[in-house]
């Protein structure tokens, strides 16, 4: 009964390859996110989707393309992987509740290593 799940947990690949990370939430939330956490633990938002629509794109390179087939899924596809893409990628979800807690529920993360 995992709330936010990501696959794979680990991903090791070579520069120039294309890879995808999948995310699913079973909380019935209408908003999903992708975050990148670098080696210094800095957590930076990449994308926000609300009801399958892109809301926030934080100047992420075009090589990163999120896709939301439905409200429960937000996948991240990365083209032409570079060394600097090595990081832990977290998916998160939340339910829009104005005036109340905007708690985000994070997945376990996907550790991407580009060699």
């Amino acid at each position: 009964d995992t709330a936010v799940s990501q696959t794979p947990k680990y991903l090791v690949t070579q520069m120039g390859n294309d890879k995808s990370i999948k995310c699913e939430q079973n909380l019935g939330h209408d908003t999903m996110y992708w975050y990148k956490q670098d080696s210094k633990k800095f957590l930076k938002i990449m994308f926000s989707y609300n009801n399958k629509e892109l809301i926030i794109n934080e100047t992420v390179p075009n090589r990163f393309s999120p896709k939301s087939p439905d409200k429960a899924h937000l996948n991240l596809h990365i083209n032409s992987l570079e060394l600097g893409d090595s990081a832990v990628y977290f998916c998160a979800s939340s339910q829009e509740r104005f005036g109340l807690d905007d708690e985000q529920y994070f997945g376990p993360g996907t550790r991407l290593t580009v060699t």
Partner: protein
Amino acid sequence: QQQVKQSPQSLIVQKGGISIINCAYENTAFDYFPWYQQFPGKGPALLIAIRPDVSEKKEGRFTISFNKSAKQFSLHIMDSQPGDSATYFCAASIDGGFKTIFGAGTRLFVKA
């Protein structure tokens, strides 16, 4: 203007002591200030949060103090326990929560 500055970078506290982590922001449009706790190998999890119309919020051993005029907020962990050893992130969000800016994180170690 979108940054959230967090200090200290790391903190060592004796068991039973008080842990204090501070954050500052610039953008007055931020309207939600959560603190997240992250254990190694796990995703962050919400610990406690506050809205700018409140100056303090307490949940168990965790208290947020919020100073709107100074644009600062802090997390106090009373009676710190070894199990509290983790990385703590302050954050601030706008746009109905769609955009959350995280501080750089504080690694807390509570000595037994």
